[in-house]
C-alpha cells in the first residue's frame, strides 16, 4: 500500500467516527466501562501476584541435621537432598551462623546467648528451596526420612491457604477480564454494524468500481482502533489517579509485614500499556467482525 493511501484510510476512519456521532459515543462508552473494571482487576491481580511471589520466595524447608552427624555424613546428606527431584537450591547454615542470627534477632536480650558460643546447642541447617513452592510439603516429607535428619520445618497450612486464595483471585480476575472483553467486543460490533447498514450501499459501490476488500476494510480498522484507544483514556486517567492516592495514603503498609503494595511505577505504566492494547484489540476486532459480511459482493 502506498503511503498516500494509508493517509486516506486514516482520514476516512476519523471522518466516519465523527459522522457516526452517537454510535461512536456509545461504542466508546462501552469500552470505557469495560476497561475501568478490567483495569481495576489488573491492578488487583498484579498486587496479588506480587504478594504470591514474595510469599513463594519465603517458602523454604529448614532441615535440621542430627548433632551426631560427621562432616562426611553431612556431605552425604547434601548430595542425597540434591538428587531429589524438584529441589531448586540448598544452602548450608552452620550452627555458628545460626546463633549469630538468633542473637541479632533478639537484640539486647540476645547477648546472654553469647555465653553459649562454646557449647552451641543449635543444629547445623540445610535451607532447601523447592522449584515449585506449592510442592514444598512433598519435598519436606521426603527429606525427613533421610538419614541424619533430625527434624524439618516449613510453613505449613497458612501457605497452602494463601496459595489457594491467590490462585482463586487470579483465576476469577482473568475470567472476568475475558468475559468483559467479549461483551465489549460484541457491543462495538453491533453499534458499528448499525452504522454500516447505512453505508452498505457505499460499500457495494466501492466494490463495483474495483476496490479490494482490504481497501474497504482499512478505514474500519482505523475507526475500531480509535474507538478502542479513545475508550481507554478515561479508565487510564481514573485508575492511575486513584491508585496513586491510595498508595499515597497507605504507603507500603498492608498490615502484614511480609507483604507490600506495588509502587505506582512501573505498574501504572504497565496497566496503561495493557489497557491501550486491550482497547485497541477489542475495537479493531469488533469493527472487523461487523464489516466482514458486507464485503461479499
Amino acid at each position, binding site marked *: 500500500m502506498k503511503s*498516500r493511501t494509508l493517509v486516506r484510510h486514516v482520514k476516512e476512519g476519523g471522518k466516519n467516527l465523527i459522522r457516526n456521532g452517537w454510535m461512536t459515543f456509545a461504542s466508546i462508552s462501552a469500552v470505557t466501562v469495560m476497561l475501568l473494571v478490567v483495569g481495576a482487576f489488573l491492578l488487583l491481580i498484579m498486587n496479588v501476584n506480587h504478594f504470591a511471589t514474595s510469599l513463594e520466595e519465603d517458602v523454604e524447608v529448614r532441615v535440621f541435621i542430627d548433632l551426631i552427624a560427621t562432616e562426611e555424613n553431612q556431605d552425604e546428606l547434601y548430595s542425597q537432598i540434591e538428587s531429589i527431584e524438584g529441589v531448586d537450591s540448598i544452602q548450608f547454615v552452620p550452627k555458628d551462623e545460626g546463633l549469630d542470627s538468633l542473637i541479632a534477632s533478639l537484640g539486647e536480650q540476645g547477648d546472654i546467648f553469647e555465653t553459649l558460643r562454646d557449647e552451641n546447642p543449635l543444629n547445623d541447617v540445610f535451607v532447601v528451596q523447592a522449584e515449585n513452592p506449592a510442592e514444598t510439603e512433598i519435598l519436606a516429607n521426603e527429606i525427613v526420612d533421610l538419614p541424619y535428619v533430625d527434624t524439618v520445618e516449613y510453613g505449613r497450612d497458612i501457605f497452602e491457604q494463601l496459595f489457594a486464595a491467590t490462585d482463586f483471585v487470579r483465576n476469577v480476575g482473568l475470567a472476568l477480564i475475558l468475559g468483559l472483553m467479549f461483551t465489549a467486543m460484541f457491543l462495538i460490533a453491533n453499534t458499528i454494524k448499525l452504522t454500516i447498514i447505512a453505508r452498505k*450501499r*457505499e460499500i457495494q459501490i*466501492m466494490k*463495483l468500481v*474495483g476496490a479490494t476488500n482490504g481497501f474497504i476494510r482499512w478505514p474500519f480498522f482505523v475507526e475500531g482502533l480509535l474507538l478502542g484507544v479513545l475508550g481507554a483514556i478515561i479508565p487510564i486517567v481514573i485508575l492511575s489517579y486513584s491508585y496513586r492516592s491510595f498508595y499515597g495514603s497507605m504507603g507500603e503498609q498492608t498490615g502484614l509485614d511480609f507483604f507490600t503494595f506495588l509502587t505506582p511505577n512501573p505498574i501504572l505504566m504497565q496497566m496503561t500499556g495493557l489497557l491501550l492494547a486491550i482497547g485497541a484489540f477489542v475495537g479493531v476486532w469488533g469493527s472487523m467482525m461487523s464489516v466482514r459480511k458486507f464485503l461479499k459482493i
Partner: protein
Amino acid sequence: MISMKEVWKKYPNGVMAVNGIDIEIEKGEFVYVVGPSGAGKSTFIKLMYREEKPTRGDILIGGKNLAKIKERQIPLIRRNMGVIFQDFKLLPSLSVYENVAFAMEVIEESKANIRRRVMNVLEIVGLKNKARFYPHEISGGEQQRVSIARAIVNNPSVLIADEPTGNLDPDTSWEIMNILEDINNRGTTIVMATHNKEIVNTIRKRVIAIEGGRIVRDEAKGDYGYEK
C-alpha cells in the same frame, strides 16, 4: 474481447435466469441487449462484471475466465471495465469530482494524475463546471453523466451499462447516447441493456435479443423488434 460459452445461471431460489448462452463480442463493438422484462438481461450483464457467478459455462474477458477466478481477483477484473447503472449509484456524500476520483483512488493513482484525468473525463461528459456539486444538487441526466465519467476514468476496455437511460427523459437520453457513442468511437467496447425502442432503432448497432434466458436473435445493425 468478451466470449461466453454455454453459460447458465440458476439463482439460489431456483430461478433459471440464463439458460445456455453462447456469444462473442469483438473489441470496439457496440451491442444492445434487448428483451422483455424478466428475460435475463440484467443477469447477463451482471455475469460480465462478476456480480453474479455463472452456475455453469465459461466467461472470458480479456483472457481471464470469470467462472474460474478467485474471489480476490474480482476487483482487478472490474478495474478493467466500467459499469453504468439505471440508478447511477453515486456516493451521496462525495462531490462530483470526488465520485469520479474515487475510482482512481482505489487503484492508488497519484493526486496529480487523478486531477488531470478527472477533469479530462468531466470535460468529455460536459460537467467540468459542476465538479464541486453534490449528486443531490444536479439533475438525473447530469448524475448519469457523472457515473459515465466514473466508469471511463480508468480507461477500461469495456463499458457495461444496464438501462443507462431508464430513468431519464427522452432529450436527456439522447445526450447520454451521444456520450456513449463518442466513447465507443474512441475504441471502447460497449454492451448496453435497454428498453428504449427509439434509441435502438435510430442509432443502429448490433442487437442481441434475450428471452427466457436464451439468445433468440443476434443481428448486426438490428432493430428493437418489440412493440414497447
